[in-house]
């Protein structure tokens, strides 16, 4: 993204502030020059670590889970294909919030009835939900990417004696990865944003902290504006990293 874009965003923000009648904005709640403002802003920004941890671990799990779901989906075995298909269709159909409730409140009960006594806290409940929910989409991304690689590549790999795992590992996935990366990055951004739902089960991430300050300070406009920009910053950073990665991989392909 060009530096111009940031300047543009800055002016939008400025416009928001200036175009409103006096008394609309009360930035004092997060003014770092006052004692209470500083405490508030520290508290709000402190949510970054949870949101980032949540998103990265969930994205990582979803990338692995997605591959585990996608590969059987392309097998010649109709049984494996059906299982993969059902998983994708079923998981894709569940809205995130109900799934979060089910995992957080319901899953421990199911596990207990099976004799497994695991207490799922808000952090892992949220991660599990995000990862499972996202894996259905990641699986579809993998499928599209892998199927876009010419059949001749698999055939050539087979004729030089590679087995299924080796063909995937050395021939298909490295080529598919370049095509998968942009939509996968999109999915990661989606996870970061959806992690806000973790606030409803008590996870102390960005949104939850914003809600808590809103309740005590009663300044929703300022707090939620800040919250939006907090997510914006995260997403912009991800975009930059992905662009850099794409450039690196792109040049890698053409390099001798």
């Amino acid at each position, binding site marked *: 993204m060009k530096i111009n874009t940031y300047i543009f965003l800055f002016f939008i923000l400025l416009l928001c502030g200036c175009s409103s009648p006096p008394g609309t904005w009360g930035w004092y709640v997060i003014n770092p020059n006052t004692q209470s403002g500083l405490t508030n802003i520290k508290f709000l920004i402190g949510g970054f670590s949870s949101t980032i941890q949540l998103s990265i671990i969930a994205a990582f799990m979803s990338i692995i889970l997605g591959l585990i779901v996608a590969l059987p989906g392309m097998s010649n075995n109709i049984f494996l294909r059906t299982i993969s298909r059902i998983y994708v269709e079923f998981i894709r159909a569940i809205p995130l919030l109900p799934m979060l409730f089910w995992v957080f409140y319901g899953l421990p009960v199911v596990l207990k009835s099976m004799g497994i006594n695991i207490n799922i806290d808000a952090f892992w409940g949220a991660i599990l939900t995000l990862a499972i929910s996202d894996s259905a989409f990641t699986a579809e991304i993998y499928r599209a990417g892998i199927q876009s690689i010419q059949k001749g590549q698999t055939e050539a790999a087979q004729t030089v*004696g*590679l087995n299924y795992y080796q063909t995937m590992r050395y021939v298909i996935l490295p080529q598919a990865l370049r095509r998968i990366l942009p939509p996968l990055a999109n999915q990661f951004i989606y996870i970061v944003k959806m992690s806000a739902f973790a606030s409803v089960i008590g996870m102390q991430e960005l949104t939850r902290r914003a809600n808590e300050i809103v309740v005590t300070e009663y300044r929703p406009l300022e707090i939620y504006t800040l919250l939006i920009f907090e997510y914006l910053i995260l997403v912009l950073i991800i975009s930059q990293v992905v662009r850099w990665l794409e450039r690196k991989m792109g040049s890698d392909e053409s390099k*001798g």
Partner: protein
Amino acid sequence: MVSLSPAININNLNKWFGEFKVLKDINLTVQEGEKVVICGPSGSGKSTLVRCINRLEMHQSGTINVRGTELTNDPKSIAEIRSDVGMVFQQFNLFPHLSVIQNLTLGPINALGLSEKEAKERAFLLLERVKIPEQANKRPSQLSGGQQQRVAIARSLCMEPKIMLFDEPTSALDPEMISEVLDVIIDLANDGMTMVVVTHEMGFARKAADRMIFMDEGKIVEIGTPNEFFETPKTDRCRIFLKQILQH
């Protein structure tokens, strides 16, 4: 050359693509060291036949036997046959994300268990044999079509196959690059490699083939020595085909 079991023995082979019958009662025996050239109009099933031999296509009835191993659904039999059979494709099918040398060593390292050093030594010998050792560290996309196909041949030879299958190896090449690829194949033929070649290069066939096979509509219509085949074709279908492709 006398050996106990033929290199390839195909018996009553039938194959359908859905409703369409592509191969009809194919019977063919290829002896060790023999060079067989298959020609015929497009859609006659010649590529499919060759691809059945190493299970890139599955046959529905009949038997295929390669050097004493019958080709079944058992992955072991498939792996064993593939380890004996090398294949060169019309579209080269090189791995575009790997360098030339990595293309050559991938199979030997992973399937044969060679060390990287051994695999590289073997690969360089074969690159010299196909006359492009200087291109070892380039990507396939940086090579000409003829060079790419020679790399593909070398990649196949790295697995030390006993039989080589060529599926229209020069059909995707610019005319001026055809001979450099055919030279390599003829060189291989002179070395005694068993080969089955699907091609329309009749000059090459005359020079290299022990036997010519003409296919049409999924059937083997004619089998004979190149001399018989070119001078005295037995069927009208074959005469017309030869007339058409030899006109120019």
